C-alpha cells in the first residue's frame, strides 16, 4: 500500500467518524440534552487529537476499545451504583414537576357545552406503531390544526396537512397517522394521554376520533407544595410523602404518579432490615454459593475421572471419544437448558418415563435444585474433561515411573502424585468456573426461572441465584423496581470482589506482564 493511499484512508475514516459524532450531537441537541452534547463534542475532539497528531501512538490503538468499554461497560456499572440510591421504578419514573403536570392533566373533566376537537392518533414519522409515543393531531371546529402530546399543544402548519370532510387529519408531514386498528391496539396508552393546555386545563381523547378540552379539577399550590382536588366534596388535599402525593386526611390514598428521588442507602437497609427480604436474600445467597461449589465439584470430578480413564497410551480411538464427549459443551447454552427442561417434565418428560418414576422435578424446591445440578453437570463436564486431559499430559511420565519404582500402587500414585499436580494446574480454572457459575443466569432462568415459588410470595424463588433475583426485581414483575434491583446488583459486585481477591492475589499472571 502506498503512503498517500494509506493517508487518504486514514483521513476518510477520521472525517467519517467525526461526521457521525456531529450527527449524533445534533440529534442530542434536538432532544435538549446539553450534557450529552458536551460529552459527544469532547469525544470528537479527543479522537481528532489522537489520530491527527503523532503525539500518542499507544492511544491510537487503545481508543476504539476503550471508548466502547467506557460507554457500555464502565458507565453502566457506575450508573448502577448511582441508581441503587434512588427509588427509580414503577410509579417513580419521572421528576416531581412531571408528576404534578401529569396528575393535573389526568384530572381534566369535560366542561359541558364546550366544543370537541376532531382527533387522529399518530406517531412521529419512522416510529414503531406498537411502541412509539403517541401524539394527537387535532382540528378545532374553526378548522385550525394542532399537534398535542404530553409536553403540550403546538399549532400544526396547514401546509401538507390533509383532512377528511369532517376535519379529521389523515396526513401530516413528520407524522404517521395510525389506522383505526393500530390505534385501537394502543387504547391503553391512549387513555393515559392528556395534553396539558396553557390555562391549566387539558385535552383528552374520547374514543378514537374525538377529543375534548376540559378543566383540571386538581390544582397545585407551589408555595405550600400541595395538590388540591376540587372534584370531591370537600376538596381533598395531597401532600408529598415518600416520593408520592399522599392524601393528608387518609394516608392510604395516593396518586399513582410519584417521582424519582434520591433515597440514600434505604434500598440497602431494606435488604438487611425487611424480614421477608432478609431471610429470602440469605437463603438465595446460601443456595447461590452451594450451587457454584457443587457445580464445580461435580463437573470437575466427572471430567477428571473420564480424563483419567482415557489417560492410557494403549487406548485407541481417543480422538473419536473426545470429539463426541465435547458435544454437550458445543450445544448453545439455551438449547441445553430448554431441552433438559422438557426432559424433566413430570408428566411427559423422558427422565421420569425412562426411569419409571414420578418425581416433580421442576415443581418442588429440592427437585428443581437437583435438576439444575444434573443439567449443569452434563453441560460442564466436557470442559473439565478437556482441561484435565491437557493437565494430565503435562505431568511428566518419569514422575509416575519414579512412584512405581518406589512401590506405590496405582491408587497411591493417583492420590499422592497425580492429584496434587493436577490441582496446581487446574486450580485457577476451578476458581474461574466458580465465578462463572456464581452468576450463571442463563441456566437457572431458562430451566426454572428461579422457581418454584413458595406460596403467594412470588418475589423469592427457591432455586433463585442473586442475579436471577435482581433480574426479576427489575424486569419481570408488574411493578419493576430498578433502584432496588441495582442495589442487589451492587451487593453481588461486592460479593464477587470479596471472593475473587484470594484468587486474584495468587494469580501469577500479574507478574507475567513484561
Amino acid at each position: 500500500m502506498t503512503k498517500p493511499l494509506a493517508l487518504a484512508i486514514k483521513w476518510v475514516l477520521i472525517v467519517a467518524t467525526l461526521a457521525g459524532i456531529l450527527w449524533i450531537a445534533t440529534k442530542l441537541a434536538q432532544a435538549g440534552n446539553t450534557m450529552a452534547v458536551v460529552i459527544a463534542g469532547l469525544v470528537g475532539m479527543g479522537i481528532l487529537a489522537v489520530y491527527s497528531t503523532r503525539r500518542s501512538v499507544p492511544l491510537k490503538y487503545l481508543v476504539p476499545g476503550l471508548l466502547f468499554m467506557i460507554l457500555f461497560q464502565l458507565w453502566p456499572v457506575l450508573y448502577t451504583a448511582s441508581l441503587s440510591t434512588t427509588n427509580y421504578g414503577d410509579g417513580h419514573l419521572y421528576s416531581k414537576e412531571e408528576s404534578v403536570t401529569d396528575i393535573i392533566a389526568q384530572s381534566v373533566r369535560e366542561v359541558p357545552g364546550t366544543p370537541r376537537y376532531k382527533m387522529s392518533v399518530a406517531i412521529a414519522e419512522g416510529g414503531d406503531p406498537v411502541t412509539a409515543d403517541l401524539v394527537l393531531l387535532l382540528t378545532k371546529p374553526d378548522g385550525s390544526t394542532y399537534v398535542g402530546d404530553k409536553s403540550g399543544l403546538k399549532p400544526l402548519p396547514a401546509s401538507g396537512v390533509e383532512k377528511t370532510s369532517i376535519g379529521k387529519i389523515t396526513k401530516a408531514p413528520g407524522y404517521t397517522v395510525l389506522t383505526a386498528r393500530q390505534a385501537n391496539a394502543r387504547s391503553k396508552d391512549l387513555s393515559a394521554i392528556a395534553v396539558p393546555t396553557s390555562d391549566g386545563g387539558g385535552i383528552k381523547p374520547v374514543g378514537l376520533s374525538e377529543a375534548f378540552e376540559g378543566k383540571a379539577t386538581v390544582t397545585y399550590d407551589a408555595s405550600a407544595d400541595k395538590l388540591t382536588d376540587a372534584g370531591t366534596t370537600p376538596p381533598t388535599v395531597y401532600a408529598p410523602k415518600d416520593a408520592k402525593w399522599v392524601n393528608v386526611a387518609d394516608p392510604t390514598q395516593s396518586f399513582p404518579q410519584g417521582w424519582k428521588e434520591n433515597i440514600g442507602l434505604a434500598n440497602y437497609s431494606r435488604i438487611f432490615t425487611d424480614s421477608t427480604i432478609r431471610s429470602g436474600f440469605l437463603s438465595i445467597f446460601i443456595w447461590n454459593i452451594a450451587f457454584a461449589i457443587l457445580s464445580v465439584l461435580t463437573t470437575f470430578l466427572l471430567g477428571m475421572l473420564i480424563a483419567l480413564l482415557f489417560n492410557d497410551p494403549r487406548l485407541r480411538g481417543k480422538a473419536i471419544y473426545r470429539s463426541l464427549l465435547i458435544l454437550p459443551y458445543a450445544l448453545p447454552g439455551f438449547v441445553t437448558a430448554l431441552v433438559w427442561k422438557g426432559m424433566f417434565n413430570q408428566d411427559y418428560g423422558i427422565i421420569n418415563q425412562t426411569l419409571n418414576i414420578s418425581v416433580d422435578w421442576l415443581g418442588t424446591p429440592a427437585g428443581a435444585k437437583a435438576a439444575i445440578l444434573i443439567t449443569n453437570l452434563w453441560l460442564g463436564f466436557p470442559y473439565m474433561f478437556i482441561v484435565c486431559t491437557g493437565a494430565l499430559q503435562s505431568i511428566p511420565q518419569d514422575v509416575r515411573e519414579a512412584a512405581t519404582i518406589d512401590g506405590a500402587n496405582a491408587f497411591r500414585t493417583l492420590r499422592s502424585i497425580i492429584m496434587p499436580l493436577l490441582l496446581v494446574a487446574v486450580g485457577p480454572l476451578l476458581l474461574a468456573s466458580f465465578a462463572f457459575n456464581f452468576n450463571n443466569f442463563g441456566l437457572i432462568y431458562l430451566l426454572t426461572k428461579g422457581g418454584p415459588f413458595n406460596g403467594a410470595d412470588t418475589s423469592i424463588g427457591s432455586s433463585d441465584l442473586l442475579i436471577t433475583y435482581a433480574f426479576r426485581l427489575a424486569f419481570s414483575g408488574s411493578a419493576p423496581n430498578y433502584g432496588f434491583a441495582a442495589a442487589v446488583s451492587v451487593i453481588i459486585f461486592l460479593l464477587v470482589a470479596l471472593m475473587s481477591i484470594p484468587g486474584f492475589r495468587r494469580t501469577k499472571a500479574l507478574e507475567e506482564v513484561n
Partner: protein
Amino acid sequence: MATVNAPVPADPRMDTRIEEETGASTPVSPKRGGLGGSVWWRHALGILALMWALFPILFIYSAATNPSGTLNTASLWPSGFSTKNFTDLFNDSSRPFWTWYKNSMIISFVGALGAVFLGACAAFAFSRLRFKGRRGGMMFLLLTTFFPALLAIVATYIIFAAIGDVLPALGLNTVTGLILAYLGGALGANVWLLKGYFDTVPRELDEAAIVDGASHARIFFTMTLRLVMPILVTVFMLVFVGLYGEFMLASVFLTDVDNQTLGVGLYGMTLGNDANTLFGRFTAGALLGSIPVMLLYLAFQRQLVGGLTTGSVK
C-alpha cells in the same frame, strides 16, 4: 483468568505436542499394577460416558423427527422419521425462525468481528508499544473479567432506552443496539489471550520493518495481523459462540418477534400452554440452531482445546 502453568493460550504448537504425547508412537510403558494390562474396561466405561453425554442429543433428534411433534409423545429412541416438525416450523408466520437465525448470525458475526478488531488493536499496544500505565491497564482488564457485564444490566437497559429516544436505530429492540452493548465487553479476557500470542511474534521483525521505514500502522495492518492470524481466528470463534448462546441481554433488548435471536425466540416456544404441542417444532429449531456452533467446535477442536486450557472461556 490467566493461569499459572498453562501454556501459551491456544498456541497451535501446544496441540501438536499433545498429539505427539498421546500418539501411537509413545512407547508403551511397562505393565503396571492395578487392573491389569487390558484396556477393555476402559472402553466399557468410555461407552458409558458416551451414553451419558449423548442421550440428550439423541432425544433432541428423536423429538425433532417425531411425527406427532408433542412433548408427551417424544421418546428417547426415534419413533419414525418425519419432517413435519421442520415444515411446521418454517411455515409458522408468528414465529419467523429464519429471521431469528439471520439475526443470531448477524449479531454473532458482527459482534465477534468487532471484538477481534478492538481486541487486536489493544493487544498490539500492550504487546508492542511501551507507555505509562501499561501494566496497570492489563491488570484493570483482568479485573473487569471478574464482573460480568450482565450485573449492570438494569443500568444498561435504562441507558439504551435513553439512547433509543434520541437515536431509534441504536436503542432497545434493535440488533445494532445489542451489538453495541456486546462490544462494551470486547476487551478484557480477549486482550489477555491476544497479547499472549502477540508476544510470541519476534520483536526483531518489527524492528527490521522500522529500519526499512515502515510506520507503526503499516507494521500492524500488513505484518502483525497476518502473523497472529491463528489467534484472531480462535478469538473470533470464542466470541462468536459466546454471543450466539447469549440469552440475558438479548431477551431484555429484543422484544419484537422479528428482531429476536434464536435463543430468545426458541425460549418463547417453551412457555405457557403451547409448550407441549410446540415441543417438536422447538427441538427441530434447536437442532438446526445448534448446527453452526457444533460444526465450529468440531472443526476447530484443536484450537479450542488449547484455548480452553487457559480458562478464558465459560
